[in-house]
C-alpha cells in the first residue's frame, strides 16, 4: 500500500534483539494507523489485566501515511500501551521530527517488548538498530538527555524521544518527550518506558516510502503549508483561549469549586502572556501554525528561564485551578515539570486535591510539610517537588489520585476529580455537556483530546461531515451526539498522526485530508469513510477496556460535576441528565446498555475478526 512500508520493527529489550514483521494491508486500510492501529496491535499481543509496569506490557509507536511527504502537521507520533493509572488502554501523542524520521528509517510501527537488565537507549539508524548504554544519562532531565544523545551520536539533527527522572522512578504521571520540546503527556506512558529501563529512542532515516503520486502530494503539501500559515499567523498559541473559555465557564477554578475568575484569566492569558514572557512562536517541523511558545523571562530569583512556555492546559491546572495568577511562577513550575517529565494536568490536579483535603481537615500540616494555600507560589513549588519525586506527601500518589484518596480515606474520594483514575483536564464538563459524555467514555480516562467537544462551544464544527452546526452546549438531547462526532474527528487525527491544529487553527478540512490520502495512497475515502476508521479504532480501544474489566459502571462523572455554578458562563448548569446522555452515546456507537460493543457493530465495522473477544 502506497504511503506505508507495511513494516513493523519489533525490539526485544530483554535479549537486546530485533526483528521486523509485515503489517496486514487490510487493517492499514481499515484503520489508517496511529492510535487505531496501535490499539489493534495491543489487543492482539497484550493479555488483559496485566500490570502495566511489568515486562509483559508493550509500548507501541504507530505512524500513519502523513509522514510520507512533508504534509503540514505530520511531525506527530502516537504511543499506545497499557497505562499505569487506568490499568487499561492508553494512547498519548506528542510532536517532533522523530515521527517523520521513523518513517524515513523504514518503519510504520515500532513495538518495544520485555525489559532491559540495565538502563539502555536505542538508536534506530535506517536498518541498523543499536542498544546503547544509558547509565551516563539515567537521572538526567529530558532536555539534558536529548543534548547528550545528540552529542554522543554526533548529529544535532537526530531526534530522541526520552523520559526524565520521573519516568525512571515509575511516577504514574510520567510522560515521554521529544527532545524536551513536546510531550506525550497524559496517562503515564513515561513510567512504562521507565519500567523497561528504556531511557530514550533516537532515530535517523534516509529513505522515501513509495507514494502513489509523489509530485502531486508534494505540491499539495506546499500549497496547504502556505495557506494554513497565512490563516493562522499572528495567533497567540493555546494561551489565546484562556480568556474566552473563562467567559464560557469552561476553565477549572479552585479545583473545580469556583465559578468565575475574570481578572485571573486576563493575568495569565494573552495578550499579557505574550508581552510578560517575551514570547516567540516555536513551530514543530512541518508546522505552519507554530502554537508552541518559546519564552525568555527573568524570574524572581534573578535567573533567566529560556525555553518552552506553559500551554493552556498548564495555565488551567497550575494557574486557574490553584487560583494562581502569577505567570512567572507558573512558567517556572512548567519548566521543572517538563524537565522532570511529568504531566502538568495531573500534577495540578494532585496539588488542588491536597489543598482541598487540608481545608477539609483530612490531612494535617505535619503530614503535608507545610500549610498549603490557594494562589501561593510556595505551595506550588513545594508540592510539585514532592509529587515529582513521590516523596513525603507526594508518595501517596504512587497509584494515582485514587490511590491517594484510598490512603487518606475520610471520604476524600468525593473531592478527587477524575474518571478511571485519570484527572480531568482544564475543560469543565458543566460548560459543555458533550464533554461530560466524552470524559466518561474516553478509553484512556478523562480526556479532552480523544474528543474535542469543548471546541464546539467556541464554534468549531465540520460542515463537510454532514453537520449543520455545532451542538448546543447545554442541550442534553445532543450531548451524546456531540461526544460521538467530536471523538470521531479527534480520533481521525490520531489515526493519521497529524496535529489537530491543522484543522482547529489552520482551517484544514476533512475533505482536504481525503485529498492528501488519495495522492499518497491512491485510494479514495469519502469523508464519512474517513470517520469510519475512527469508529473502528474506538471500538477496538473499548474492547481493550472491556477485557480489562471496564464497562458502564466506570463511565462516570466526578461528584463535583453535578454542582452547578451560581454565576458566570455556566451558571445554573450541570449535566444532571448524564445517564440518558450516556444511553444516547452508546446507541450511536452500537454498544449495549452496559457500554459493551456488540457483534453487530463489529460486523458493520469490518472487525469480524474480533467478535470472539467479546464477553
Amino acid at each position, binding site marked *: 500500500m502506497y504511503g506505508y512500508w507495511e513494516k513493523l520493527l519489533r525490539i526485544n529489550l530483554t535479549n537486546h534483539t530485533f526483528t521486523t514483521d509485515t503489517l496486514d494491508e487490510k487493517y492499514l486500510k481499515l484503520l489508517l494507523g496511529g492510535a487505531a492501529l496501535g490499539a489493534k496491535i495491543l489487543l492482539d499481543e497484550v493479555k488483559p489485566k496485566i500490570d502495566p509496569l511489568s515486562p509483559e506490557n508493550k509500548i507501541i509507536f504507530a505512524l500513519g501515511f502523513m509522514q510520507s511527504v512533508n504534509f503540514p502537521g505530520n511531525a506527530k507520533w502516537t504511543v499506545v500501551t497499557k497505562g499505569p493509572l487506568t490499568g487499561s488502554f492508553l494512547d498519548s501523542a506528542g510532536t517532533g521530527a522523530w515521527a517523520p524520521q521513523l518513517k524515513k528509517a523504514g518503519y510504520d510501527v515500532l513495538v518495544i517488548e520485555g525489559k532491559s537488565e540495565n538502563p539502555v537507549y536505542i538508536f534506530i539508524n535506517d536498518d541498523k538498530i543499536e542498544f546503547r548504554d544509558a547509565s551516563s544519562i539515567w537521572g538526567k532531565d529530558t532536555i539534558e538527555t536529548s543534548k547528550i544523545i545528540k552529542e554522543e551520536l554526533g548529529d544535532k539533527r537526530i531526534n530522541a524521544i526520552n523520559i526524565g527522572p520521573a519516568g525512571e522512578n515509575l511516577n504514574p504521571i510520567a510522560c515521554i518527550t521529544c527532545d524536551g520540546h513536546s510531550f506525550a503527556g497524559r496517562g503515564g506512558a513515561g513510567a512504562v518506558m521507565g519500567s523497561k529501563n528504556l531511557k530514550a529512542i533516537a532515530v535517523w532515516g534516509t529513505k522515501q516510502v513509495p507514494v502513489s503520486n509523489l509530485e502531486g502530494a508534494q505540491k499539495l503539501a506546499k500549497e496547504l503549508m502556505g*495557506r494554513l500559515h497565512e*490563516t*493562522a499567523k499572528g*495567533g497567540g498559541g*493555546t*494561551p*489565546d*483561549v*484562556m480568556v*474566552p*473559555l473563562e467567559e464560557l465557564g469552561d476553565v477549572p477554578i479552585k479545583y473545580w469549586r469556583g465559578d468565575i475568575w475574570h481578572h485571573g484569566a486576563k493575568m495569565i492569558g494573552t495578550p499579557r502572556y505574550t508581552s510578560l514572557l517575551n514570547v516567540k512562536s516555536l513551530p514543530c517541523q512541518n508546522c505552519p501554525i507554530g502554537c508552541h511558545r518559546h519564552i525568555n523571562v527573568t524570574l524572581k530569583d534573578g535567573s533567566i528561564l529560556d525555553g518552552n512556555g506553559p*500551554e*493552556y*492546559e498548564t495555565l488551567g491546572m497550575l494557574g486557574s485551578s490553584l487560583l494562581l495568577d502569577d505567570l512567572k511562577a507558573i512558567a517556572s513550575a512548567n519548566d521543572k515539570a517538563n524537565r522532570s517529565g511529568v504531566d502538568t494536568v495531573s500534577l495540578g490536579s494532585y496539588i488542588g486535591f491536597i489543598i482541598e483535603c487540608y481545608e477539609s481537615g483530612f490531612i494535617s500540616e505535619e503530614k503535608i510539610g507545610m500549610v498549603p494555600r490557594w494562589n501561593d507560589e510556595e505551595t506550588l513549588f513545594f508540592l510539585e517537588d514532592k509529587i515529582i519525586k513521590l516523596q513525603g506527601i507526594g508518595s501517596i500518589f504512587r497509584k494515582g489520585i485514587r490511590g491517594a484518596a484510598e490512603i487518606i480515606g475520610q471520604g476524600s474520594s468525593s473531592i478527587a476529580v477524575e474518571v478511571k483514575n485519570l484527572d480531568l483536564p482544564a475543560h469543565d464538563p458543566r460548560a459543555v455537556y458533550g464533554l461530560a459524555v466524552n470524559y466518561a467514555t474516553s478509553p484512556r480516562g478523562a480526556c*479532552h*483530546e480523544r474528543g*474535542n467537544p*469543548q*471546541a*464546539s*462551544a*467556541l*464554534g*468549531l*464544527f465540520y*460542515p*463537510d461531515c454532514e453537520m449543520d*452546526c*455545532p451542538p448546543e452546549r447545554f442541550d442534553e438531547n445532543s450531548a451524546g451526539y456531540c461526544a460521538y462526532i467530536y471523538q470521531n474527528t479527534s480520533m481521525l487525527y490520531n489515526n493519521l498522526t497529524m496535529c*489537530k*491544529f491543522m484543522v*482547529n*487553527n*489552520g*482551517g484544514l*478540512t476533512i*475533505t*482536504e485530508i481525503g485529498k492528501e490520502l488519495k495522492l499518497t495512497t491512491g485510494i479514495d475515502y469519502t469523508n464519512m469513510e474517513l470517520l469510519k476508521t475512527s469508529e473502528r479504532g474506538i471500538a477496538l480501544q473499548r474492547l481493550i477496556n472491556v477485557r480489562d474489566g471496564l464497562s458502564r459502571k466506570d463511565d462516570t462523572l466526578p461528584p463535583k460535576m453535578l454542582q452547578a455554578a451560581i454565576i458566570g458562563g455556566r451558571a445554573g448548569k450541570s449535566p444532571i441528565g448524564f445517564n440518558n446522555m450516556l444511553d444516547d452515546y452508546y446507541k450511536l456507537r452500537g454498544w449495549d446498555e452496559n457500554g459493551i460493543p456488540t457483534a453487530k457493530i463489529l460486523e458493520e465495522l469490518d472487525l469480524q475478526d474480533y467478535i470472539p473477544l467479546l464477553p
Partner: protein
Amino acid sequence: MVKIKFFGILTNKMPKKDEKGYWVIDGKGKTIKELLDLSLIKEANVKYTVLVNNERKDTDYILEDDDIITVIPLLAGG
C-alpha cells in the same frame, strides 16, 4: 441572494439574522471579503475559516446566487 452564518464566538458579529440565524444579503458577484467587511468580524480579533456550500474558499472567492457561506472561528486550545 446569499446566506451567511457566523458560528460560536463570532455569532454576535453578524449585522443581522433571520429566524433561521442567517444573514441574507444580495451577494451575487461580490467577494466573500466584501461581505465580511460589512460585518463586525474584525472586532472579534479571531482567526476564522470560510466555507461556501461546505467547501473551503479563500475570501477573494466571487459569490453566486443561492450560495451558503459558513464562517467558523479557528480558536482552539489544548
